[in-house]
């Protein structure tokens, strides 16, 4: 693409470009291929899979918020029991490396989805596993696993047991917690290969006509550009914790509100090794190419020759 290096490696997974399609915002990749934009992504994350197919309890309705989208975090999902080694939903010519997202309401659920992926030769088509820790814990008042070091740790540990050691595990955290570093530390100790921040942050909108919630308040989250400062702050905090020794070294992936090369450059400078694009792709399926180009430009402008040179530089004085 240019004289600027763009390859990064996260927990053993090599990405041609440090830009990933976020869970739930790129389906299983077929549409990206149809739109001809698959090559601008280093990997994609699938919509979160569950142990058993979860039918639409509610339509996964999206509502517009200022510079954001409010979406239910509990959505209809594909059950791992339906996966056929010969006909994976992401088995389409041209789809980039696939990170499979897992969801559940107990650590056992997660283990079951992870084990399901080992069945047959499924794992061969899985480049990594992402754990949706925004899923709510049935055994902890339906609060997200990511709100609780203990809950998050248990889930990561169970998934780690069930997934071959060569497959990297991405623990996807929530930025809207009091002590993100504490939760992160638990995940790292339990075997996470990388940390992803942020899941949608808790949010609520009411229908202007009825003044009732449009989406169940217990599980509706805000995505989109509105999150950018929150995402950058979360990445900054985790990187700062690594630098100060409060957190063992671990690669970070920024997600939430990133839509331009400039945003991506900021995320890398704050400490991320890669970014994910969610609503940016819903708004503009060509966004990934622009993000990669802008990132390359940001590297070049500073006289660097590889995107790796940007990582963490915001912390240097």
């Amino acid at each position, binding site marked *: 693409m240019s004289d600027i290096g763009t390859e990064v490696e996260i927990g053993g997974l090599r990405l041609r470009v440090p830009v990933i399609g976020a869970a739930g915002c790129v389906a299983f990749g077929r549409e990206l291929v149809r*739109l001809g934009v698959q090559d601008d992504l280093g990997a994609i994350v699938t919509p979160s899979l569950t142990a058993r197919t979860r039918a*639409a309890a509610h*339509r996964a309705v*999206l509502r517009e918020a200022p510079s954001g989208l409010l979406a239910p975090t509990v959505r*209809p999902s594909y059950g791992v029991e339906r996966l056929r080694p010969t006909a994976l939903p992401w088995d389409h010519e041209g789809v980039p490396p696939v990170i499979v997202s897992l969801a559940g309401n107990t650590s056992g659920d997660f283990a079951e989805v992870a084990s399901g992926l080992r069945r047959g030769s499924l794992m061969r088509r899985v480049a990594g596993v992402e754990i949706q820790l925004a899923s709510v814990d049935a055994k902890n008042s339906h609060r997200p696993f990511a709100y609780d070091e203990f809950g998050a740790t248990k889930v990561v540990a169970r998934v780690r047991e069930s997934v071959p050691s060569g497959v990297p595990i991405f623990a996807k955290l929530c930025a809207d917690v009091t002590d993100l570093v504490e939760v992160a530390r638990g995940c790292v100790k339990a075997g996470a290969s990388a940390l992803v921040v942020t899941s949608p942050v808790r949010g609520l909108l009411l*229908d202007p006509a009825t003044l009732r919630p449009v989406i169940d308040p217990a599980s509706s989250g805000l995505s989109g550009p509105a999150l950018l400062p929150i995402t950058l702050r979360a990445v900054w905090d985790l990187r700062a914790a690594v630098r100060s020794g409060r957190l063992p070294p671990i690669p970070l992936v920024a997600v939430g509100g990133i839509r331009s090369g400039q945003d991506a450059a900021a995320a890398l400078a704050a400490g991320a090794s890669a970014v994910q694009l969610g609503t940016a792709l*819903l708004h*503009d*399926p060509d966004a990934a190419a622009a993000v990669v180009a802008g990132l390359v430009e940001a590297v070049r402008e500073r006289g660097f020759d590889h995107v790796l040179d940007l990582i963490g530089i915001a912390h240097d004085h």
Partner: protein
Amino acid sequence: MGAFRHHTLVAPDIADRARPGQMVSVAIGGPASALVSRRTLPIAAASPSGTYGGTVDVIVDPGLDAGMAWLGDLRAHDEVAMIGPVGRAYPLPTSGVDVLVVGVGASAAPVGWLAAHLRDRGCRVDLTLAGPDDRHLVGVIEARRIAGSVTVLTGADPELGADLAARVRTQLRTSEIAVVYAAGRARHLAPVVEVARPFGVVVQCCVDEDMPCGTGLCGSCEIPVRADDGMRHTIRGCTEGAVLRGDRVDWAALAEELG
């Protein structure tokens, strides 16, 4: 044209391929916009060639929300980012049969164009345009040039759907209608499908509900359907619809999900 705005957009690639029932997905707002969702609109007409190359027409109800208001405010030479044609077109009969075409509000955008195609295939077209009032009806005058008969029906929700259905029942009783083509919101389509059921007449429905991406990526436009084997599952309204056989759609479940 009353409350709606009619835009002609230069888009040769889309115009060359578009058929009635298909849509365009439009990015809303400029780079500094607070609006993130796209809007997916039924195409009202496509002209493969024109002064500027091919064009597609869309009809916008600016009163609907901030995004539609923005679309409504577009002026000549403004540029919009557009993807299309999106989705499944109305299947057309191979022979000239009698058809009934109904459309509600701005969702009725494709019916004039569809009626012209049907007429060109030798169909006798009966057209009904419905809406809350005269200002919220699409092109009645144009429709009269195309369709054998044009009926206008106005009234408020929730009665509008039932009134429309009653009108369809009368038509099905009194004429040899082979298929009904409908375009509207789910709440208006469901009663029409219901009344057509006993007659064994298929209603091809263009289900015009929110489609935040229009590209199949977000999964937020899913419509519950029943397959041939009776199993319920969901399909994406944007890429696998918006035109669906009414008898395949689980309207009760859809209504519940739409809230």
